[in-house]
């Protein structure tokens, strides 16, 4: 059986949304920062052997926004899962985390949201622990697009959850 799922990545500018997708889809990483404008669409097929299902993840990489309420709402329609990305090294990208997540929950009820702290390779475990009051309770995964740590796990875990 083959199913297609729409995944939308959101978050501030420069948090590494496109890098995470490129790491997952192409297994590449570049230090050069290129700002995303509008929306980019990527696709990757994942096989879930236990379910005998091929999941086609159609990933929408939305341009970064320092206020989620400015996001074009029509891009969010019909989304099967959101991945909200912030940068663990830049407090500005997670200071409104709770409000941003609540906005998404309000606009797209019943759509699961996975919160991800990117650039984990740049900080220590102690740093993550120290700042857990700011983002710890809301974060599902700490990942690194640069090293690839937990990136595949993030998407395959999501794909599995979507076909349950």
């Amino acid at each position: 059986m083959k199913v297609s799922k729409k995944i939308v990545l959101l978050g501030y500018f420069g948090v590494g949304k496109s890098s995470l997708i490129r790491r997952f889809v192409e297994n590449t990483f570049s230090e050069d920062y290129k700002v995303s404008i509008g929306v980019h669409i990527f696709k990757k097929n994942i096989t879930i052997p236990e379910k005998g299902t091929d999941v086609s993840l159609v990933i929408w990489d939305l341009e970064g926004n320092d206020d989620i309420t400015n996001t074009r709402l029509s891009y969010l329609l019909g989304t099967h899962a959101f991945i909200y990305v912030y940068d663990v090294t830049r407090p500005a990208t997670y200071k409104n985390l709770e409000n941003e997540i609540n906005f998404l929950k309000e606009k797209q009820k019943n759509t699961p949201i996975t919160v991800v702290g990117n650039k984990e390779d740049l900080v220590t475990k102690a740093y993550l622990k120290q700042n857990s009051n700011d983002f710890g309770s809301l974060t599902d995964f700490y990942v690194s697009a640069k090293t690839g740590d937990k990136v595949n796990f993030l998407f395959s875990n999501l794909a599995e959850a979507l076909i349950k």
Partner: protein
Amino acid sequence: MNQDERLSILKDILLTDEREYAQKVEEKLKIVEELVNKQNQLSDRVNPIIEERLNDFVIEIPKTLGPVITEALKSEIKNSQDAVVEALFPIIGKMIKKYIQQEMQILSEQINAKMNNAFSFEALKRKFKSKRTGVSEADLMLQELVHPIIEQIMVIEKGSGIIISEYSKTQAIDEDMVSGMLTAIKSFAEDAFEKENQELNYIEYDSFHIHLQNFSDYYIAVIISGSYNALFKSQLEDKLLDFAQNSINKQDIINRDSFSEKLKKHFQ
């Protein structure tokens, strides 16, 4: 001392320098002669080796230098794109011009042939059709000459952009990516104009026309090559509306296999 002895002494006195000179010349001639002989001998031995080497070189050069030259050319072209475009533009421009001229000539001849048969049954039928449909005779004539071809039909879920069903005679594009992108373009255009109940109906891409027929839960994107005019649009809309009204029910949107089956049957 007799006369002969005296003559010999006199010869010695007078001709000593010339004799030495003649001897030196003779020695030099010998050296040159030896050298030439030696070179000829050497050539006989060396020439086959050089020839063999040259043959090897001719065989080896594409393998060894080919990739290097290709890489160098690629990088040179990449670094001097403007210069390359400038150099190629007149040549490609002329080729395109020639091709278009030829195609226009063929089209013109075909139109002339049709015009010459102005009172044929076909022409009268066209006139009548033009009056009935409101499409100009010229458009109808063009449509007869450059037939529109449906390249691909995609049924896409509104909002998500996930493909529900697709039908094409030649599978050439990644329909998931295209349907996502079409939906993003559609969402952007419809959002940007901020007018309710207005929807994007048509996109032109290169030589392709993308007709978008909107329904409540999904929309159908039809990719067409060739002439796309009002008459064809109207016929296509009728066919799509007929398909949505008479062939599709809510269940088909969930059961995508049956949707695909019906789509194929309707447009085959």
